[in-house]
């Protein structure tokens, strides 16, 4: 007898919070809004923990049926939930990090006039995200997928009176639509070929199929289209452009949605669809290549950004690239592992960045920071933990997950590995650059820390502090920072690889999800020498010889991280004039990087401008004004002209009427005579 977990409560709780705050928050006090928001998101986290605690006693995968939704012939999609190791990891990450960020937001948003609205949106986001990860079919997942897009739009444009925020929200929404279009078409393909969208049924019908190595078939098409969707949501090339702009939203939003959870939905979706991808080698290669390219390019852009949040945004894009890289070589559990650790340290980095911004009164330009180490020590130390973690310093979360990915991609192709190592070096460089610029040297901002050039202070939560000196954030913001810092430090120990004496428990934990459905003829993503059981089992059972190799690779990636640190130290601590000189020397390249390779401009010219022009010229002026309005207006004009002429008949002159009657009668009589009446 399967125990009833009442999984449906987990997404419903934040929804209830969102409804309460959204409907009555305006009239309630801040304390009441806080209570509602925290209690409901906290309850969801508690539920998730409770589920995790009982996890070993549940037969997996656990499914829960809530209600019928669509029934049409043999096709059906229900409100039903699906729990396995993969969704449990996502569940804990989303509720856990989400809850921490809720707490943080209490401090960060306290002075915002739309405090209640913020929490209503945030809870709404939690609801959709949990629907996404718990759905048992693609359609329900799609609902969550669209819902988080909506929540993201609302929260990016939270300060909608600011033009840049409103257009950033629009941009995110529209770019995501492109990806969702691909996702939707892949769903149609699945319905057409397998007659179902339920994970269980789809994967069951796909499982006996052999990989489409020879040519591209339906699975390749579905995989590629799913990847289009993932590219949109998870900000991969070519659809990554929305994420850096999304930093217009409040910083907790950047942490929760645009770093820890929503943007990883694409990775989750690809991992969830691993049965499809494993049988579509071409699609998988595309995933890997896109991930690799994105990781590298976003990292290079991140090197030259001056906005503290933009650096982190490009870093997020780059780290998501790592996750796709891992998925692309079939190392789904490594991708999910990095997803989890990334949620910890990137959430932490964003929140710490928010704390820095809070401290200096809304300033986001790193060139106007500096020397904050002693002024906001707790923020400094937590940020340090996050920086070390993402840079891949041994012993911290990012080290284990990134190293695992690099090791696994090397087994697929050394090219991925080389790019990955270079990216790791770049990552370390731009993160320590941020670190040095923000916390070391002399303070370069306005002495009193008033509004920065971005004008955020006008809306900013810390308006109250606009005139105050630089100060540490309140405890309610520091507590989540501390917890996330601890997680960033220790979070990696669930997946210590065999080469370092660990058992890679994380990989083993996810093993049942990814192994159970591996294709029988698995030849493609495996390292040479590995036959059966397939690669998901690697680290733990590998022969000792490869441990040495793996250790060498670990050493190389650590060296890359240290090198990045050294370079950043040289550039931004020892010799602060050096960056300018280098920038002048590498004029063209530096310019391109600062302007993000002019991708926004390129998209603007190639896609946006023709669309706007086409809409203006053809659809608006051509079709709407000329054709539709023209038809209506011209027929009205014509009727008016005819009436203008004919109204002279009705002069109001009695005798002219009589004349018309007489003439008409005469005409009728003449006609009747001419026709010969009565014959």
């Amino acid at each position: 007898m399967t125990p009833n977990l009442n999984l449906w409560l987990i997404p419903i709780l934040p929804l209830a919070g969102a409804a309460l705050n959204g409907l009555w928050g305006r009239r309630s006090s801040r304390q009441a809004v806080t209570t509602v928001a925290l209690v409901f998101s906290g309850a969801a986290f508690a539920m998730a923990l409770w589920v995790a605690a009982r996890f070993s006693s549940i037969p997996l995968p656990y499914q829960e049926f809530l209600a019928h939704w669509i029934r049409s012939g043999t096709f059906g999609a229900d409100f039903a939930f699906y729990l396995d190791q993969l969704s449990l990891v996502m569940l804990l990450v989303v509720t856990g990090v989400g809850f921490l960020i809720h707490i943080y937001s209490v401090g960060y948003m306290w002075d915002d006039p739309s405090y209640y609205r913020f929490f209503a949106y945030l809870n709404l986001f939690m609801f959709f995200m949990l629907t996404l990860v718990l759905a048992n079919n693609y359609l329900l997942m799609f609902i969550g997928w669209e819902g988080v897009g909506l929540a993201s739009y609302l929260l990016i444009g939270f300060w909608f009176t600011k033009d840049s925020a409103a257009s950033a929200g629009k941009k995110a929404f529209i770019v995501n639509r492109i990806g969702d279009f691909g996702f939707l078409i892949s769903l149609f393909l699945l319905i057409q070929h397998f007659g179902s969208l339920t994970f269980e049924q789809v994967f069951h019908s796909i499982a006996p199929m052999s990989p489409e190595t020879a040519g591209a078939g339906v699975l390749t098409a579905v995989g590629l289209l799913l990847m289009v969707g993932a590219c949109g949501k998870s900000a991969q090339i070519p659809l990554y452009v929305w994420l850096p702009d999304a930093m217009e939203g409040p910083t907790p939003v950047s942490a929760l949605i645009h770093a820890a959870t929503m943007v990883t939905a694409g990775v989750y979706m690809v991992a969830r669809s691993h049965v499809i991808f494993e049988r579509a080698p071409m699609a998988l290669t595309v995933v890997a290549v896109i991930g690799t390219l994105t990781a590298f390019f976003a990292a290079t852009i991140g090197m030259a950004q001056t906005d503290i949040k933009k650096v982190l945004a490009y870093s997020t894009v780059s780290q998501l690239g790592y996750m796709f890289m891992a998925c692309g070589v079939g190392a789904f559990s490594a991708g999910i592992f990095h997803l989890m650790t990334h949620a910890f340290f990137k959430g932490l980095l964003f929140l710490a960045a928010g704390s820095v911004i809070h401290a200096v009164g809304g300033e986001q330009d790193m060139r106007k920071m500096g020397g904050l180490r002693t002024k906001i020590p707790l923020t400094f130390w937590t940020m340090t933990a996050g920086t070390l973690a993402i840079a891949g310093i041994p012993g911290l979360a990012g080290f284990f997950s990134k190293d695992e990915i690099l090791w696994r991609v090397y087994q697929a192709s050394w090219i991925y590995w080389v790019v990955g190592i270079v990216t790791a070096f770049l990552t370390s460089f731009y993160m320590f650059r941020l670190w040095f610029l923000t916390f070391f040297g002399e303070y370069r901002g306005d002495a009193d820390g008033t509004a920065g050039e971005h004008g955020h202070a006008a809306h900013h939560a810390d308006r109250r502090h606009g005139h105050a000196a630089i100060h540490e954030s309140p405890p309610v913001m520091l507590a989540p920072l501390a917890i996330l810092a601890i997680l960033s430090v220790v979070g990696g120990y669930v997946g210590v690889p065999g080469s370092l004496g660990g058992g890679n428990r994380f990989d083993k934990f996810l093993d049942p999800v990814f192994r159970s459905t591996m294709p029988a003829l698995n030849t493609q993503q495996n390292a040479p020498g590995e036959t059966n059981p397939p690669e998901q089992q690697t680290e733990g059972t590998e022969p000792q010889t490869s441990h040495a190799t793996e250790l060498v690779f670990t050493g190389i990636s650590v060296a890359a991280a240290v090198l990045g640190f050294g370079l950043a130290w040289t550039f931004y601590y020892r010799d602060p004039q050096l960056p300018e000189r280098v920038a002048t020397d590498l004029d063209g390249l530096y310019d391109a990087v600062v302007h993000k390779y002019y991708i926004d401009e390129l998209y603007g010219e190639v896609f946006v401008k023709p669309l706007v022009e086409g809409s203006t010229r053809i659809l608006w002026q051509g079709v709407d004004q000329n054709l539709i309005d023209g038809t209506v207006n011209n027929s009205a004009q014509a009727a008016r002209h005819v009436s203008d002429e004919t109204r002279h008949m009705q002069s109001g002159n009695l005798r002219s009427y009589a004349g018309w009657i007489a003439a008409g009668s005469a005409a009728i009589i003449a006609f009747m005579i001419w026709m010969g009446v009565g014959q």
Partner: protein
Amino acid sequence: MVPLSYYLLLSSILFACGVAGFLIKRNIITIFMSIELMLNGVNLSFVAFAAHWHRLSGQVFVFFVMVVAAAEAAVGLAIIISVYRTRETLNVDQVNLLKL
């Protein structure tokens, strides 16, 4: 015996005179008289046909027309007097209060 066509010709000449008078004249009383002329033109054709076919129904019709014409004359003249009292004119072109 006078042929039927003569009567009908006279009748239509009378009717045409009535129509012409109705259209040309501006004085209400003249217009009124023109209407009478038209009615009597029609009456003439009725009795001519009645005599020609030896049927009485045409003559009965004429009586009816005369009765209606008499009633109409009573009402019409009353209206004309009333119009003259308020407007102090009998020109139909000036009786145009309902015109825009």
